[in-house]
């Protein structure tokens, strides 16, 4: 069955370093209300609900079941959850709508990293036999990738700093972002990455509504049609991969149809400056493409939500007429191990 599926609404929380006064559901609920309000839908109207989160972040078991309290699970929902970024929940929801099983989907994700030590928490996603016992933190692994990039001559430290400065300057117009405007590029955190090359650690949530066919047109003046979406993963062993390239991102983009016609905007989930440089090359983005007008993950990187935010920001650009064809990218795992690419288009104006 072939049906056109669109992102018809997007909402996100403020992204902040801490949110002590809020439980996960208290953080998430206003975002769910806002995204539903934009479409005029109620929970009972939604055909499928899918979320992405990780209990390791806040150390709270089964937090995703408690988060469902914010949706209102009565009458009982058709619901699913991925222990991944919400962009992968969106992929599952898109698949569900493609089958015709549902006409609308609510996709949300949230991450509350502030209770824990994120750099250490993320070591637990690594190979438990050969890698996790060494506790290599997320910045260290990104720094190995950045050094490989420098050695290959694809970038130098000023080029990395320029990515950081451009991202945070663009974030000035994004009231939700955590780091905005001019910030010092800082000292080395793990050399060659400086604090400015690294994403802020923070708490946040995001949600989108998907709808199929004519219903999408009724819910949104200019739906962001998902023309293609695909995700690909590389070998988990870092030493097997060429860290200066992202063949999985390129293949996902190819399968999503990204190379068929140029895009005008790209929202890349590149938590580290060096990763934007890898992705621009892999995705063949020229200088005429607006990259991360939202500020990207260097301005706000709520774990499990930042990838869904990329899809949401790209869709919102289409909704408001700022983009006709946008690429949205999400990543997961160390050093861009797994990548998702979606191509979104607005109806011709």
């Amino acid at each position, binding site marked *: 069955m072939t049906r056109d599926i669109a992102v018809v609404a997007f909402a996100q929380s403020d992204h902040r370093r801490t949110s002590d006064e*809020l*439980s996960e559901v208290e953080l998430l609920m206003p975002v769910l209300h806002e995204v539903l309000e934009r479409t005029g839908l109620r929970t009972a109207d939604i055909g499928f609900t899918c979320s992405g989160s990780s209990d390791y972040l806040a150390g709270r078991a089964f937090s995703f079941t408690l988060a469902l309290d914010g949706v*209102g699970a009565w009458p009982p929902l058709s619901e699913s959850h991925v222990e991944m970024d919400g962009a992968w929940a969106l992929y599952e929801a898109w698949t569900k709508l493609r089958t015709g099983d549902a006409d609308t989907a609510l996709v949300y994700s949230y991450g509350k990293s502030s*209770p824990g030590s994120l750099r250490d928490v993320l070591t637990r996603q690594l190979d438990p036999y050969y890698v996790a*016992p060494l506790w290599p933190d997320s910045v260290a692994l990104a720094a190995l990738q950045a050094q490989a990039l420098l050695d290959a001559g694809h970038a130098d430290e000023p080029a990395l700093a320029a990515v950081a400065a451009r991202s945070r300057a663009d974030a000035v117009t994004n009231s939700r972002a955590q780091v905005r405007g001019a910030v010092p590029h800082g000292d080395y955190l793990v050399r060659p990455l400086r604090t400015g090359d690294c994403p802020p650690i923070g708490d946040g949530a995001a949600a989108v509504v998907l709808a199929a066919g004519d219903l999408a047109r009724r819910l949104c003046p200019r739906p962001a049609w998902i023309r293609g979406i695909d995700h690909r993963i590389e070998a988990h062993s870092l030493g097997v991969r060429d860290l200066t390239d992202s063949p999985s991102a390129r293949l996902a983009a190819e399968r999503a149809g990204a190379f068929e016609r140029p895009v005008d905007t790209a929202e890349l989930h590149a938590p580290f400056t060096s990763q934007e440089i890898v992705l621009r090359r892999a995705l063949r983005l020229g200088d005429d493409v607006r990259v991360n007008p939202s500020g990207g993950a260097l301005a706000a990187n709520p774990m499990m939500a930042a990838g869904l935010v990329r899809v949401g920001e790209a869709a919102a650009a289409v909704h408001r007429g700022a983009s006709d064809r946008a690429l949205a990218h999400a990543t997961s795992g160390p050093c861009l191990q797994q990548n998702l690419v979606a191509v979104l288009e607005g109806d011709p104006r």
Partner: protein
Amino acid sequence: MPHVLKAPLTVEFPFTRSLGPVQSAFLTGLRERVVLGVRGSDGRVLVPPAEYDPVTAEEIRDLVEVAPTGTVTTWAWNHEPRRGQPLGTPFAWVLVRLDGADTALLHALDAPGPDAVRTGMRVRVRWAGERTGAVTDIACFEPYDGEPEPPGGHPGVFEDPVRGIVAPARLDYTYSPGRAQTAYLDALGSRRIVGERCPSCRKVYVPPRGACPTCGVATAEQVEVGPRGTVTTFCIVNIKAKNLDIEVPYVYAHIALDGADLALHARIGSLPYDQVRMGLRVEPVWSEGSRYPDHYRPTGEPDAPYDTYKELL
């Protein structure tokens, strides 16, 4: 900002993991100061070795010994080592392609400073003094300017091979339960049980979690409930839980506190287990200095009629 409760929370597990045949050979080899790789389907020698080919997913078992010397393929200077990392003093993270291998191994390099490290530099394994069959049997790498050490041609078969590893994992959090549960816990501290009412369906939830799970809206209006309540249903626990100083059998019950629309659960005491019944009226028993009721006991009132609690089952 409103008053927020916080508490330290440590999540700690010793993960016991069994090993596949290739992993077992590799880790046993490290114990015996032998580094083994495995030949992939394209002829490349993978170190660390995988059970399955990373490209074709074929099962691969052809073990090859490689040298304990090699070349840094990329590095990152870590001036502030974190808990659990291989060295406690500043070091370089490195990917090292060992002589005879085609892929690189992640580990630490002990070097005096970042100026002493570069991609392409030669390094050698520094073995740990005590080796158990784990990746940490390599203590770290160290700079090495000698000739490549030739691999020994070990077949990868060992006496007493390592069959599994125990990987301790510990994460420390500072947990905060959020607004609604903070209010609930604060009230419990003064021996009051306070739920929250849904503005839409008017139900009172206790303990409150900040949202009505039926309506999906925030609860805010605080409502004191109980302290007395009714047993709606119960079970008899016959297995003693570890670290729990309660004699079995005992009764664990759902209790609908007066004024609440959701039953909470607690232990029933002060009554033989076989006399607990649905409809039994109970009240909380607080022990000195405790922030929450130790258990519930009968009030002596007549049992509640079934119709009064049937919606709360």
